[in-house]
């Protein structure tokens, strides 16, 4: 059975590229571009992994992450963060929050992200 990924990203081009490439390697990809709808979508779809951008319109990515990690229905879902935030404080906070992996967009290729996802799902 195909594994499901919830892609939380607002960049219109990046969403399309990630979705296509993740589908090409065998995953079902659900996209959420509105952070306000995310928790409901996560409960409804129950994905096997969340791929999360922390910089989303009108929302604090760390707050979203906190919600995911503190909700009994979502806290066991691995979260891979792909974001432009890159300070050591940001990365420390992500580690404290328990994200599975972290990638800086400007320094990461799709293959690196895909390898991390596959290592958690396959």
């Amino acid at each position: 059975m195909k594994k499901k990924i919830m892609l939380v990203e607002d960049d219109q081009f990046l969403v399309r590229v990630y979705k296509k490439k993740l589908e090409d390697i065998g995953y079902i990809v659900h996209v959420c571009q509105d952070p306000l709808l995310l928790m409901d979508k996560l409960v409804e779809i129950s994905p096997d992994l969340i791929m999360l951008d922390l910089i989303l319109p009108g929302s604090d990515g760390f707050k979203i992450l906190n919600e995911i990690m503190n909700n009994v229905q979502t806290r066991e879902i691995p979260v891979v963060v792909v974001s432009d935030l890159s300070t050591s404080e940001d990365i420390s906070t992500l580690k404290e929050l328990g994200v599975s992996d972290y990638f800086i967009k400007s320094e990461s290729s799709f293959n690196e992200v895909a390898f991390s996802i596959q290592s958690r799902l396959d």
Partner: protein
Amino acid sequence: MDKAEVVKFVRSVSIMSIAVNYKTPISSIVLFAVDDNLNFFFATRRDTAKAKALSLSSEISMSIWEFDKSLVQGTGRALELSGQEASDALDMIVNATENVKEFWPPILQIEGDDYVVYKIVPVWLRILDISKDTIHVKEQMFQEIEL
């Protein structure tokens, strides 16, 4: 090589170099898609030098090549797309990543979300077969592609 074969070749490459003029000549590489009429599509951020250049002049030059196959050169006009046309072109460009599995477009590593999508309508195109070990200099090495 007929038009369909040229389309097939450029579609298999999916990355091209472009040159535009922004006070001085500037070049760049872009991921592109192409339709059956040899119109080319690419996207960039609105704050890039090439987008600024194209806002001043739509003239653009391009080269697409594979070292052991062919070189396609052309000049045309880059028209900014909007609405559904831009969205459809973005989908075509995303599908073009199929041909370049190891390539991660630099545009995706640049912060920002204000994309501009272009359609290049060529004024002329030509192709040169570079599959042979030696290219003999003759009167007409390039083949003009009928548009």
